[in-house]
């Protein structure tokens, strides 16, 4: 049989390998001992902390090592009960889980860095591209006359001359990403309809219908003012501005009219019988527009044979 010969050659291989292993193990122990001595002596200062990515790398490596050790142990028939590696694994796992929110916070930065490293430039929509560059405002082209003058005159005069010469260059604003304006009449109409629909959905009729058909318990809230209208919000904004800036703003006629209308409407019993317009949901036409003006329908006059102006003169 060829088995003993194969075994013999393999034995010599195994002996050399084991000797190598011994030498390497001794070298590794020597290195580890030196490292521990250095760490205990405080050569590696961790005052500024460690980088998150480094820590994560090391933790994952340690996790893998412990896991492979445990697999080996289990594969050779040992039990995992109370094994030290299990405790180490649990500890590393907890630390990794706790690091996850930090990871989330850094995700944007890391993604951007990786993208820049891969493509070599910032993307078009990157807001960093739009930051102000004051060095672009100064004219970088300095003529020879300027330099000669600077050498001759005093410093103050030279700076004055330089400023006048630099100002003569016309400022051209940088062209960033131009966006085409293509809002057609149809789109405007669609947006108006959407807004009207949203307003109609939050009107009192629809709200009461919702309450009637929903299974949720009825809520009775004691609110300051249930109708937070746009006018009241604008008034509040104006009051805040006036009190913070300590000035009094003038009120235009249109604004006065709107305010008076809002006050009058809310103080009368108008709101008892007049409900907001839900024509956006029902599909009809709106009667009143935003400023409470009735929407007039344009009538097309039939073109009859009109008398021309010059007719009479010719007569």
């Amino acid at each position, binding site marked *: 049989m060829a088995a003993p010969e194969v075994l013999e050659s393999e034995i010599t291989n195994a002996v050399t390998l084991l000797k190598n292993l011994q030498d390497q193990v001794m070298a590794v122990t020597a290195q580890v001992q030196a490292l521990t001595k250095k760490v205990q002596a405080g050569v590696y200062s961790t005052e500024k902390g460690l980088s998150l990515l480094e820590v994560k790398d090391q933790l994952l490596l340690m996790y893998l090592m412990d896991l492979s050790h445990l697999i080996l142990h289990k594969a050779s028939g040992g039990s995992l009960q109370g094994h030290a590696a299990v405790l180490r694994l649990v500890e590393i796992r907890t630390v990794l889980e706790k690091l996850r929110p930090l990871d989330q916070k850094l995700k944007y930065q890391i993604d951007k860095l990786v993208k820049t490293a891969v493509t070599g430039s910032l993307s078009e929509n990157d807001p960093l591209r739009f930051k102000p560059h004051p060095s672009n405002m100064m004219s970088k082209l300095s003529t020879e006359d300027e330099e000669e003058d600077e050498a001759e005159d005093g410093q103050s005069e030279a700076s004055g001359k330089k400023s006048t010469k630099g100002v003569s260059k016309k400022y051209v604003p940088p062209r960033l990403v131009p966006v085409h304006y293509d809002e057609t009449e149809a789109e405007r109409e669609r947006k108006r309809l959407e807004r009207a629909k949203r307003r109609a959905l939050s009107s009192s009729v629809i709200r009461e219908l919702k309450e009637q058909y929903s299974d949720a318990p009825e809520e009775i809230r004691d609110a300051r003012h249930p109708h937070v209208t746009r006018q009241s919000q604008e008034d509040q904004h104006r009051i805040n501005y*006036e*009190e913070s800036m*300590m*000035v*009094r703003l003038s009120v235009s006629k249109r604004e006065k009219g709107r305010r008076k209308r809002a006050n009058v409407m809310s103080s009368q019993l108008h709101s008892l019988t007049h409900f907001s317009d839900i024509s956006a949901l029902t599909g009809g036409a709106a009667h009143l527009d935003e400023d409470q003006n009735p929407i007039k329908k344009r009538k097309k006059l039939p073109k009859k044979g009109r008398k021309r102006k010059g007719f009479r003169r010719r007569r």
Partner: protein
Amino acid sequence: MVTDVLHPGKATVPQTEIREKLAKMYQTTPDVIFVFGFRTHFGGGNTIGFGTIYDSLDYGKKNEPKHRFVRHGLYEKKKSSRKQRKERHNRMKKVRGTVG
């Protein structure tokens, strides 16, 4: 500062009284206190306005607009009517150069 005056049942409080009250509150004299912009809410009883207090009258003179000094009585404005100003201007148009 923003000054909120509550005066239920009374008319709007005059500015001199407000200045005196503020002087008592902040332990100064009423001549370094300048108040402005008072608006009474509908129905009466509550007025909101603004007020500034200076360390000394000199600072106040440097930083306040002239019409508030007029209210204190420290400044007199030249009262020439619009008609008179326009007539003077039209007279000046007829003469060229400096008048002796």
